[in-house]
C-alpha cells in the first residue's frame, strides 16, 4: 500500500455536470488525507452504504492543500449504477474515500517534451499530471507540453479551459465536430515523427481500444510511454487479486499484475493485449 493511505470521510463541496454525462465533484478532506501523486486514485462510495456494494475507483483529477483542509477534485463519466449514484449526490453529503492508492506516473527530470494522450474521461489523471508534475514546478517551465485530447463529439469534451493556455492542446473528435476528425491515436500517429526518444515522454489514459492502438503505434518505436489502466476493482489495495492485467515480466513470461497496487500506471511495453 502506498504511504499514508487511509479511510477518510470527505464532504461534497459541489458536484456539477461539466459536459454531457461528465461530472466534476469537489470534496472537502481533512489534512490527514495524504497528498496524492499524479496517476494515483481513490476508492469512493456514498457513506450511507445505500448504493452498490463496492466502492468505485476514480483518479485524482485535482488536489489543493489549504491551511486547515484539502480539496480533492474528481472528474467522472456516468458509466453505470455507481457513477450515476455519484452524480445525484449533493453538497454536504459524505463521501467515503480510501486512498490515495496505487503507483502514479514517473516524472523524469531529463525530459523536455511531455506528450499527453487522453481519450474521454482518461484526461482525469493526466490533467492532474499536467497540474502537479509539470505546470506547478517552475524549474520545469520551459518544457514543451503537448496534449492530445479526444472524445466522441464536442459535447463530450472536458478540461478545455483548464488545459488551454498551459499546453499545446490538440483536440480530436470522432465525428470531427471539433479539431481533428478521428481518434487521438490517429493524429498522434501522423505527428509521431516530431518526437525523439531522448527528450520525450508519453503519458496516456483512455479506453482499452485506444491503449491497444497506442501499443500498435509504438511497437517499434523507442519512445517511452506510460499508460494508466482501468480494470474492475473490489479492494483497491492489492488484497483481492481482482484487478489483474496481463504483463510480460522481466524474464519474458506472462504474469498478472494488480492494477490497483502495481499500477494503475504501467510501462506500455510491458502490456500484453487481449487476443495476442
Amino acid at each position, binding site marked *: 500500500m502506498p504511504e499514508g493511505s487511509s*479511510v477518510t470521510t470527505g464532504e461534497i463541496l459541489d458536484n456539477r455536470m461539466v459536459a454531457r454525462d461528465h461530472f466534476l465533484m469537489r470534496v472537502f478532506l481533512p489534512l490527514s488525507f495524504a497528498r496524492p501523486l499524479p496517476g494515483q486514485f481513490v476508492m469512493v462510495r456514498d457513506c450511507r452504504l445505500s448504493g452498490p*456494494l463496492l466502492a468505485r475507483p476514480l483518479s485524482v483529477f485535482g488536489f489543493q492543500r489549504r491551511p486547515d483542509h484539502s480539496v480533492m477534485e474528481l472528474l467522472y463519466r456516468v458509466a453505470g449504477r455507481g457513477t450515476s449514484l455519484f452524480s445525484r449526490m449533493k453538497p454536504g453529503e459524505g463521501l467515503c474515500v480510501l486512498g490515495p492508492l496505487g503507483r502514479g506516473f514517473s516524472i523524469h527530470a531529463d525530459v523536455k517534451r511531455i506528450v499527453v494522450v487522453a481519450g474521454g474521461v482518461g484526461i482525469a489523471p493526466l490533467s492532474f499530471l499536467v497540474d502537479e508534475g509539470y505546470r506547478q514546478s517552475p524549474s520545469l517551465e520551459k518544457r514543451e507540453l503537448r496534449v492530445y485530447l479526444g472524445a466522441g463529439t464536442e459535447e463530450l469534451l472536458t478540461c478545455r479551459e483548464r488545459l488551454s493556455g498551459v499546453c499545446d492542446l490538440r483536440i480530436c473528435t470522432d465525428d470531427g465536430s471539433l479539431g481533428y476528425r478521428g481518434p487521438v491515436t490517429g493524429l498522434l500517429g501522423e505527428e509521431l515523427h516530431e518526437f525523439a526518444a531522448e527528450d520525450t515522454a508519453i503519458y496516456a489514459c483512455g479506453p482499452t481500444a485506444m491503449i491497444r492502438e497506442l501499443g500498435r503505434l509504438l511497437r517499434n518505436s523507442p519512445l517511452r510511454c506510460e499508460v494508466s489502466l482501468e480494470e*474492475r476493482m473490489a479492494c483497491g*489495495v492489492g488484497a*483481492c487479486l*481482482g484487478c*489483474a492485467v496481463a504483463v510480460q515480466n522481466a524474464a519474458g513470461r506472462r504474469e498478472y499484475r494488480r492494477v490497483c497496487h502495481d499500477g494503475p500506471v504501467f510501462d506500455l511495453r510491458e502490456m500484453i493485449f487481449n487476443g495476442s
Partner: protein
Amino acid sequence: MIMKKETPGQNPPDLTVAIGGLVLKNPVMTASGTFGYGEEYVPYCDLNRLGAVVVKGLSLEPRLGNPPPRIIETPSGMLNAVGLQNVGVRAFLSEKLPFLRRYDVAVIANIFGETVDQYRRVAHILSGAAGIHALELNISCPNVKKGGVAFGARPEAAAEVTANVRAETDLPLIVKLTPNVADIAEIALAVEEAGADGVSLINTLTGMSVDIEKRIPHLANVTGGLSGPAIKPVALRMVWQVVHAVKIPVIGIGGIMTAADALEFLIAGARAIQVGTANFVRPSATMEIIDGISDYLTRHGLGSIDKLIGSLNTNPSNGD
C-alpha cells in the same frame, strides 16, 4: 443498530474462543483471499486485534490464476474468479510470513491442491514452519478446473483428503466447506470423522453474470464465486444445520458486514466467524465487528461470549 452504552468500572466481556487446540483472543478472523497476506490492510486495521488472519489459498507451486476480468459486482454481492492465484507455499514462507510474524495474531494457512498428495505436501511444508497456528483446508474453491470443489462435493472425497492431511500435521485442522451441495451436514460429518478439528463455511456459491450488450459473460472464466451480503441467509442456514450435525467447532462465513451479522452466526452456534468481502468495502470492518460484539455482550449483561454462542431459541413459546 448497536448502541454503545458505557458501563463504567465493568470488565470488558471475555471474547476468547477455542478451535481445537487453538485459542483466539476473539472470534473474528479475516477470510482467505480477502485480506491478502495481511500487509495490504495494515494502514487501515490493527492486525494485533484480530482473532486470526487466514491467508490467501496456498498451493504447492505458484499459480498464475485466471485471465481478467475476474470480478463483477452483483446485487449485494460480487462474483470472483481469481483462480487461486498465489505465490506458492515456499515463497509464502520466505516472503510473506515473516511480515505477519511481527504481529501478535494467529496465522491460519488456507491450503489447496489438485490431488490428495499435493494437499499433503503443502500441509507438510507448513507444519514444519514456525508461525503457522492452524491449517484451513480449502476443498471448496469453485474457480479452478481440477481439485478444489471436487473434494468438497462428496463425503468420501472430503474425508479422504482430510484424513491424509491429518496424518501429516499436528496443527489444528479446519476444513472449509462448499455450499454447492445438497446436504452440507453430511460433508461436515465426514470430515469430522476423518479428524478435522473444526469446519468453516461457507465458501462462495457458484454464480454467473452476463454482459447483455456484448453478449459475453462478465467473467473470462464464465462462472465465479458469489460472496457478500447476498449469500448471508444461505450461509447462516448451513451453519445452523452443521452446528446441529457435528461436535467440532463451526466457523461461520458468508456476507458478514457488521457486528449484527456476526452475532447472527454466533447465536446460531458458530464458535467463530470470518469476514471476507466486507474488508473490501470497509477495510476497518473487522475492528468494528470486534467492538460491536463486545458492546452487545455488555449491553445484554453477558460476561463471556460462550453464553451467546448457540443461544438461539428456535421454539419461542410466546413470540414478540
